[in-house]
C-alpha cells in the first residue's frame, strides 16, 4: 500500500510561487487577490489572465500534491480559494471558471478541486472532463478529488479511458487502493481483446492484474467451420 496522494497546502503554493525565478508572478497574484477582494466579478478576467501573468512552466519546487502543476495552476487555485465558500459562492465560481475556461483553465480548476472545500458538489466537472478526449483534462480529472468523490463505475471507466488514450496511470490518485475485482475483470478483457487483434496489451494494465486474473485469462480462438 502506498500513502494517499496529498493535497497541496495553500500556504505552500504561495511560497512556491514566491520561490520561482519569476518574481513578477507572486507580485501579480498579490495584486489580483487585492482586486478580487474589492470586486468579486473580477475573477472572470483574472482567472484567464493568470496564464499570461504567471506562465505555463512547471513550479520549480512544487509542494507535495502539486507535482506537475504550472505556476498558473497554483495562482488559479489561490484565486478560487479567495472566493468565500459560504452560500455555494466558491463552487459557483469554480463551475463558471470551468464552463468558460480554455483547456488550461479547466485543468487548473480540476487540479484545485480537492483544496476548495466544496464536498462532492463539483463532481459534475470531473464527469464533464472524463467525457472529453483531451488527455490533459483526463489526467487532471482522475486526481485526488475523483478518488474521493467519483462513483466507482465511472472511476473504473476513467482508468480504462486513460489506458486507451495514453494517459499514464500514475495520474490516477490512489490507483492501487481503489482498484477492485471488477476493474481487473475489465482489464483482463482488454488484454484478451488486444491479443486477439495481434496488438500488445498495455503494460500498465498487465501490472494491475493478479496471478489469479492471469490464470483466468483464456486466449481467444476463432471458431471456423468444422
Amino acid at each position: 500500500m502506498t500513502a494517499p496522494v496529498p493535497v497541496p497546502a495553500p500556504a505552500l503554493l504561495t511560497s512556491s510561487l514566491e520561490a520561482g525565478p519569476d518574481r513578477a508572478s507572486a507580485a501579480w497574484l498579490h495584486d489580483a487577490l487585492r482586486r478580487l477582494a474589492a470586486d468579486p466579478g473580477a475573477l472572470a478576467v483574472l482567472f484567464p489572465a493568470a496564464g499570461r501573468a504567471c506562465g505555463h512552466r512547471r513550479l520549480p519546487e512544487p509542494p507535495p500534491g502539486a507535482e506537475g502543476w504550472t505556476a498558473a495552476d497554483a495562482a488559479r487555485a489561490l484565486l478560487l480559494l479567495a472566493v468565500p465558500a459560504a452560500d455555494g459562492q466558491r463552487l459557483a465560481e469554480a463551475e463558471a471558471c470551468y464552463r468558460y475556461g480554455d483547456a488550461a483553465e479547466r485543468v487548473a480548476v480540476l487540479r484545485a478541486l480537492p483544496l476548495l472545500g466544496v464536498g462532492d458538489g463539483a463532481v459534475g466537472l470531473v464527469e464533464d472532463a472524463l467525457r472529453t478526449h483531451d488527455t490533459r483534462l483526463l489526467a487532471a480529472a482522475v486526481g485526488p478529488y475523483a478518488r474521493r468523490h467519483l462513483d466507482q463505475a465511472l472511476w473504473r471507466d476513467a482508468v480504462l479511458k486513460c489506458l486507451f488514450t495514453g494517459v499514464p496511470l500514475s495520474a490516477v490518485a490512489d490507483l492501487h487502493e481503489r482498484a477492485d475485482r471488477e476493474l481487473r475483470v475489465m482489464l483482463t478483457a482488454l488484454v484478451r481483446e488486444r491479443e486477439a487483434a495481434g496488438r500488445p496489451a498495455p503494460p500498465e494494465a498487465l501490472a494491475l492484474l493478479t496471478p489469479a486474473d492471469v490464470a483466468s485469462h483464456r486466449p481467444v480462438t476463432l471458431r471456423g467451420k468444422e
Partner: protein
Amino acid sequence: MRILDPHIHMTSRTTDDYRAMRAAGVRCVVEPSFWLGQPRTGVGSFTDYFDTLLGWEPYRAARFGIAHHCALALNPKEANDPRCAGVLDVLPRYLAKDSVVAVGEIGFDSGTAAEEKAFALQLALAAEHGLPALVHTPHRDKAAGTRRSLALVEESGLDPALVLLDHLNEVTVDQVAGSGCWLGFSVYPDTKMTPERVVRVLERYGTERMLVNSAADWGHSDPLLTAATGRAMLAAGFTEDDVDQVLWRNPVSFYGQSGRLRPELPDVLEAATHEGNSIARGGS
C-alpha cells in the same frame, strides 16, 4: 519554408490536412470564428464552438506539431439573427483567453444595419482588450463593402496597424494599400485569388503588411495553397527572405501585437510530453 496560415477554419478539416500542412512547412495557424454553413440558432452553440477553438482544436493541431490560435467574434452573417445577439454579451469573457490573438471575423456580409452595429461594437472590444481585428470583406459588392469597412475602422479610432482587411483582390487592394491597415489575400482553387495573381499583386505593391492565407473551410478550398504561393513567389524571382516575410514574419508581427502569440508550440506541450506522457500518442 516556414508558414503561419493567418486564416484557416481547421474545425472543418481532417487530420490528413494537419499532417500535410506540417510537412509543407505550416507551423502555426490562426483560426477565426465564422459561420459553419448551417446557421446557428442560439448563443449556446456559439459558446460550444468557441470552446472548441480554445480547447479541442489546439489539442488536435498540437498532435501534428502545429501551434493553434484563434480569433473570436460574432460573424457578420449571423449578426443579422436576433437570436444570436447575446453572443456579444459573453464575448468579453472569451477575449480574455491566452490563445485568442484577435477579434474576428468581423465586417460586412449583406451590409445591413445589424452588421454595422456588431462590427463597430467589436472594433471597440478589440481596442478595449488590446487585440488586433480581422475584418472579412464581403463576397458580394466587395469594393463598396471594403470602402465602408475602412470608414468604420477610421471612425472607431482603432489604430489601423491593428486591423487586417482580408479576402482582398485586384479590385480592392488599392483602397487598402494606403490606409495603414494590413492586407490579406485568400488563395482558393477556383474563386478568390490564385497563387499567380497574388504574386502579381506583390510585384506591384511590395511585401510589406501583406498576408497570404488559405481560408480553407468546409467548401472547395486547399490548406496547402499558402505553400504553393511561396513557390510561385520563388518562381517569379522573389527571394527566400521575401517568402519568409509574407508567409511567416508578417503574420507573426500582426497577431504578435496581441502579446499572446506563441508561434511555435508552447511549453504546455513540452510539459505534456515530459515524463513520457506524449499527447501525440494516438488512442486505441
